């Protein structure tokens, strides 16, 4: 940062819950429960008081009725003072990164010193909703006066009223193009010639990398165990399959476009519950409290494109950052590129390595280059640990900071595609 008016912004610390695979029925935690579960330990290990926070921002896509403005509910449940303002943000799959970006900009502009920015999502709690025809009938029933009126209203009942709309399914369908998210990955796979086998191989590697990160303790400070009221402990991302192999990945049938599609449950991100928090601080706050930041946040970018190819969001958002700073592909030591779908990640890599695409779409002279797989999603990603939509953006930024520190990397980019045709990216640099 050269502008003296601009404050430097640091990612000081952060933690997340394990990502818990949505099984049958709602999981043990609501969105705010999850935010409290990982928020408590991360606050408990700070040397400064909770009053040091100026603001709490929380990303969450599927807010439940009991937790309107989940940021405020979480902040109060975490024991933050009532004076601390808290608001929630929603930009679909980018919500957890939006919270960090908003915090980053507030601190950079000098109005705030320390912000708690998180993301949370309990996809297993996504509601079943009544069809609008059923809601109409229900309204008539409620306002019916007298037995005759009621009987009349009652006779309007139809079997489909009892066939509720699955909120999660609707949420993962783009309302403009009516394509499901999986279908957008199918579209990209065709454009960039990604075959099933390549996608499966990518998915397998994601599982192996996460399993190694778990067993080698690389998530120790990042992942805080969660505890439910029945006495159960959740201490790891439970969607991981350490023994994942090509044979197993070849089994599942295409889910989104059967029978000829190639995006399967095995090479897509998992539906999970989870939360993540990052603590962002200004230079002044770092000095005042004697903090040791994980990384400095030095740039961010959002971008939009056609919803049917939303999976290329990372290319559209991360490239302008590289251009602004004059970075070539080798200047970025580590990448976290959210694994919505294996085919989508591979399409992004293919796009960056395509002269024509880079020239015509991104305005580069030639291909951005081949991103070394050893620099990309080094500890697994959403395919192995899951994609709680409002949380993932927060997690990849936090994990990038931790991975950079562990590996002594200088520079990294966390980026993600966003349902609806958006992309987000953040640039982190070692302190």
């Amino acid at each position, binding site marked *: 940062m050269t502008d003296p008016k601009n404050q430097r912004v640091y990612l000081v610390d952060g933690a997340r819950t394990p990502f818990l695979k949505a099984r049958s029925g709602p999981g043990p935690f609501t969105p705010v429960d999850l935010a*409290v579960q990982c928020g*408590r*330990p991360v606050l*408990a*290990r700070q*040397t400064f008081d909770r009053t040091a926070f100026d603001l709490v921002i929380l990303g969450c896509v599927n807010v439940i009725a009991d937790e309107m403005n989940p940021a405020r509910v979480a902040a*109060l*449940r*975490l*024991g933050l*003072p*009532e*004076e601390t303002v808290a608001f929630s943000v929603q930009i679909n799959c980018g919500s957890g990164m939006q919270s960090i970006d908003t915090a980053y900009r507030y601190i950079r502009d000098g109005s705030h010193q320390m912000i708690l920015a998180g993301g949370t999502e309990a996809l297993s709690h996504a509601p079943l909703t009544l069809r609008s025809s059923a809601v109409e009938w229900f309204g008539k029933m409620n306002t019916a006066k007298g037995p005759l009126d009621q009987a009349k209203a009652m006779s309007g009942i139809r079997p489909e009223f009892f066939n509720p709309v699955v909120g999660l399914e609707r949420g993962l369908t783009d309302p403009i193009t009516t394509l499901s998210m999986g279908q957008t990955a199918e579209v990209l796979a065709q454009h960039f010639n990604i075959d099933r086998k390549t996608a499966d191989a990518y998915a397998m590697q994601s599982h192996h990398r996460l399993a190694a990160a778990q067993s080698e303790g690389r998530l120790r400070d990042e992942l805080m*165990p969660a*505890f*439910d*009221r*029945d*006495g*159960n*402990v959740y*201490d790891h991302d439970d969607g991981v399959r350490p023994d994942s192999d090509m044979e197993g990945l070849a089994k599942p049938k295409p889910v989104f476009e059967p029978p000829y599609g190639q995006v399967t449950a095995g090479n897509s991100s998992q539906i999970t519950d989870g939360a993540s928090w990052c603590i962002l601080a200004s230079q002044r706050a770092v000095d005042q409290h004697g903090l040791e930041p994980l990384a400095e946040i030095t740039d961010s970018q959002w971008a939009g494109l056609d919803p049917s190819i939303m999976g290329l969001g990372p290319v559209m958002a991360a490239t302008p950052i590289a251009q602004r700073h004059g970075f070539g592909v080798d200047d970025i030591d580590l990448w976290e590129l959210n694994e919505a779908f294996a085919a989508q990640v591979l399409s992004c890599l293919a796009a960056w390595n395509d002269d024509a695409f880079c020239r015509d779409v991104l305005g580069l002279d030639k291909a951005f280059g081949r991103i070394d797989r050893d620099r990309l999603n080094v500890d697994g990603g959403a395919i192995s640990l899951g994609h709680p939509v409002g949380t993932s953006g927060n997690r990849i930024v936090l994990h990038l900071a931790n991975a950079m520190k562990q590996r002594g990397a200088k520079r990294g980019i966390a980026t993600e595609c966003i349902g609806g045709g958006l992309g987000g990216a953040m640039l982190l640099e070692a302190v």
Partner: protein
Amino acid sequence: MTGHVLKYLGETKLELGPVGDADGNWRTGRDDADVLWLVLDKQNTNMNTISKDVIRELDQHIIAAEKNLPTAIVIRSAKKAGFAAGADISDFEAMTEDGAADLLQQAHDVLDRIEALNCPTICIVHGAALGAGFEIALACDYRIAIPGASFGFPEVQLGLHPGLGGTFRLPALIGPTDAMTMMLTGKTAHTKRAKSQGIVDAVVEERHIAAAVTAAVEGKIDKHEPGVTSRAFGFDQARSLAARKMRSETEKKAPKQHYPAPHALIDLWVEHGDNRDAMQKAEIQSFARLLRSDTSKNLRRVFFLRQNLKDEGRGDDGVSHVHVIGAGAMGTEIAAIAAIKGKIVTLGDIETEALGRAIGTAAKICEDKHLSDIEMRDALDRLMPDPRGYGLAQADLVIEAATEREDLKEKIFKGLKGKLKKSAILVSNTSSLSVDDLATSAPSKTRFAGLHFFNPVSRIDLVEVVKGDATSAETAASLAAFCGAIGKLPVTVADYPGFVVNRALVPYMLEAMVLMDEGVSKEVIDTAALRFGMPMGPVTLADQVGLDVGLHVAQSLSENLKTSMPPISDDLRERVDAGDLGKKSGKGFYDWSDGTPHPDADLDEAPDDLTDRLILPMLNACAEVLREGVAQSPDQIDAAMIFATGWAPFRGGPMHYAKQRGVDDVIARLRELQEAHGPRFTADDGWSGLA
């Protein structure tokens, strides 16, 4: 939340109508609609109790109202704490039997006149309306509750039953079944239940009380009408039949021999349940009689003992964050109770599975304590499992509740050096190790002490604050205040083997094992103790505590005490070796697979000295700890034994019992036992100072 905006606005003010300053214990005034407000604001206290003066002054106000009848009368309290906590118990002490009946009759007359007034009478209740306070409310035409209000007759806990008309006014209002249950159990009905039972006619927020009073005056509030079942109990047979069940249920919890009051209440109802005037006369006579009973005197003594310990627990503890080390049974319950009472709690254990179980247990405790969903959520939010020990650096108080091994505790303490806040207090929940020995490993000796909780922490009120040689007075005071803050009763004692409670209990349990070795059955032993009034026989108690824990404590005491202890039986060691540890393993001396044993044996064949062999060693140990200066006073010991072990409360505590029985008699009896059974019964030197 206590933010400055709400603080500025202040708490919701009580609607007191037009009343002026206090004239005696009541503040009065008539509003524009000529409604007379009678507001009880007892002098020199934060809590209303119904004293002789309160009644006498009320009488004057009612007489005045009769002469100049207002549109209506509103009765309520000006105290934030609530309506009234019941009769002023210190008045009871002064009453003789005849005097009591006279005073009661006068009070009854006042309430009868309120009931007979020719204008609506409206009682507004916030907080608790207990005993005589509840009885004043019952004499009114309307009862309007503010959310949070509660109603009850705790008299049975004092060896009494309601004495100001409750025995006939409550059954008439809500029916005898609910009314008798309330009076026999002493349980309070909170707002919601009070509304559904018909105790209150309306539940109204404080901010709408003026409007509610107007509505009541205009007859716009529906009065609760008693149900049809009440009428069925107008027949003698119906009451006799119902009473039979009440008697057997009551006998189980409160045997007539030790607790006459509930049985007297049932008798009253059976005889006079269909005749209000007769019931009123009989209630007065019965109440006056009970007032003079040893049971009631001793239970009132227990009430004051509790007040004393509560007073010791007042003050600022300076503790907002507690870190508990060890998620075993004790650590878990300590953490849960502290969190329920509003402390920020971190619970450390290297085993995450143990932390998981701890949260499960804490959730159950919240349910047992009837916390609302929100209260439970907040309590569990405040209780953070802490496998990495983050809480240590932030805690104002660190409670070590690890396994009872000196080397382990020392290792833990040494590991804490440099990690705690400078002002932090460290305590050990040890039950058998020397606090002074442990202090040598603590980061600061002055800010170290013992804090001995009893199992199960969620149900046993007493905590021994063990002040070591180096423990500072400030530390001890903070710990007593911490106990008060989490709803516990502190007794501050000195470091001594077994402190007070275990020092007294161990010989009781060991003697039982000697008796078993002699061939006396465990059922006979336990029955003897139960008949004496102990809540649990010594064999059941040993099983409940855990035979391994009991053995450990017994060994530690036998090694460290100068006085002679009963030998530790081989049977106990063998059971511990075999893993039969009592309740927790499903089998100890008893088989616990079907739940808690309830021995009820025939004592005809029991040794004559059985009860004294069990009880007197406890008394002897109490004399010893008093002589040694471990406890400060006989009352403190009585309180500790009653609130930690449930020691026969109707006897007023072990020291009080010895005094009532006669110290000389106790010494003589110990001498006989010593001759018959050996030196463990040698009367302690401390008795000479008590005789």
